[in-house]
């Protein structure tokens, strides 16, 4: 337990101390919110779908949580490069504990980042249907953060250098974001797109956020939470397996 706690705490400290990075990584969601939010607003309204800012804000929150949780898991690359990973791997604690501590730490900091963006959205004019929806949305933020921190840890266990990071970014993280329904409704899509968006775990996260915050559901709360929990378990197992195989 002590090991999980201290590694969780370490991840959290790293996050809190990188203040510059926190501010910088709020820039991207802001850009999406303003450029896309206000840019698509008129045409979205013309199509009879209401306010696009309202629609896209939950998607932007989901995107933030996705990016920061995957990155925190992949930050293991640095720990490998700077040698700190070795210090934990020769310690008399099981690899599972190390992996869980790191993953929970990443998930926690990604959740905080998600909440910060939610606050930004509120400032930008986003309004949830009821203030009581916010605690429910938090559940989905935490679920998304757990799923993708676990995936990040799994990837971080396999990747050995920065080139790999680029590959993951372009061929995994960006598609997960763009095919999740964060930016457009998932209704009335073609067969192929429908299939792909249903396979993307972030779709359920974004739908959960959008459902709880503005009551725009594609699936139901139970399906969303169930799918995310299932994928979280799957990724945690995968992460644990890959992490236990690391050799230094």
């Amino acid at each position: 337990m002590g090991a999980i706690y201290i590694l969780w705490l370490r991840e959290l400290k790293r996050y809190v101390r990188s203040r510059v990075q926190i501010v910088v990584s709020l820039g991207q969601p802001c850009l999406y919110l303003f450029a896309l939010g206000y840019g698509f607003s008129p045409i979205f309204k013309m199509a009879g779908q209401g306010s696009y800012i309202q629609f896209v804000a939950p998607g932007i929150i989901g995107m933030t949580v996705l990016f920061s949780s995957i990155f925190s898991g992949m930050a293991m690359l640095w720990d490998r490069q700077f040698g700190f990973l070795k210090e934990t791997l020769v310690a008399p604690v099981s690899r599972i504990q190390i992996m869980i501590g790191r993953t929970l730490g990443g998930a926690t900091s990604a959740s905080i980042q998600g909440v910060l963006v939610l606050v930004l959205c509120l400032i930008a004019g986003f309004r949830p249907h009821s203030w009581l929806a916010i605690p429910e949305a938090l559940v989905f933020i935490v679920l998304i953060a757990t799923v993708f921190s676990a995936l990040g840890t799994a990837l971080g266990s396999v990747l050995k250098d920065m080139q790999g990071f680029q590959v993951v970014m372009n061929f995994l993280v960006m598609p997960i974001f763009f095919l999740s329904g964060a930016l457009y409704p998932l209704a009335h899509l073609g067969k192929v797109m429908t299939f792909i968006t249903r396979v993307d775990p972030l779709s359920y996260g974004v739908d959960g956020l959008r459902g709880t915050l503005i009551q725009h559901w594609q699936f139901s709360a139970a399906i969303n939470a169930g799918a995310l929990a299932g994928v979280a378990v799957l990724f945690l197992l995968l992460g644990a397996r890959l992490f236990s195989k690391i050799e230094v």
Partner: protein
Amino acid sequence: MIRVQNLIKTFGDFTAVKDISFNVAQGEIFAFLGPNGAGKTTTIKMLTTLLRPTSGVIELDGLDPNKNSKEARQRFGIVFQDPSLDGEQTAWENMELHGVLYHVPRKIRHERTERLLKLFELWDRKDSMVKTFSGGMKRRLEIARGFLHTPRILFLDEPTLGLDPQSRNQLWTHVKHLNETEKTTVFLTTHYMDEADRVAHRIAIMDHGAIVAQGTSTELKQQTSTDSLEAAFLALTGSSLRDESASSKDALRNFAQMWKR
């Protein structure tokens, strides 16, 4: 304290460690010398559970590190060839994290951290981020950290690499001091013959994966009829250079590995 018998490690068709055997007694300082690529680090990695031996017996304090890895890890400390500190945390936090990972109770952890940081002259910098430390300070902190959980054996893999003579001198004084006061067995590798001569009780010289000689410094000099350890070392291992081509091959190997999984 350390018993190694017929230890072999092969990577594919390359044999890095060829059938080595040695014993290190409790409280002894044992130095492992050898040119680059002799297999010193591979041996340390096997002793510290980071690599599985292909065959052979290892006993640390009576334990097989591959079967009882957790118990064995609790009993040794290691300072790696390259740094393994968390630069984004303070010196105190690095010690704290290590203490928690090694199950040192809070009170003892704090007492020992204070004592060790004072001994290694880092106490007044305990709240500074490690990334702001000089090379010598980082090394000292790593060694202090290695002693935190009162290990029975401390492994030091080229601990003085890249340090100035002052830091090296001071570092060995502290290590000797702790070896005497806490009866810690020390297993070290180095390229500086004078260090081995000064600190080590016994020395083993390794070359091409095999131990070519072992004994006290005096015994090694007698054996080779030379008058310095350096001359003895060169007499035993020859004066040709090693390992020049390994780096580019290693880089390619790493690259291939990245895509394998």
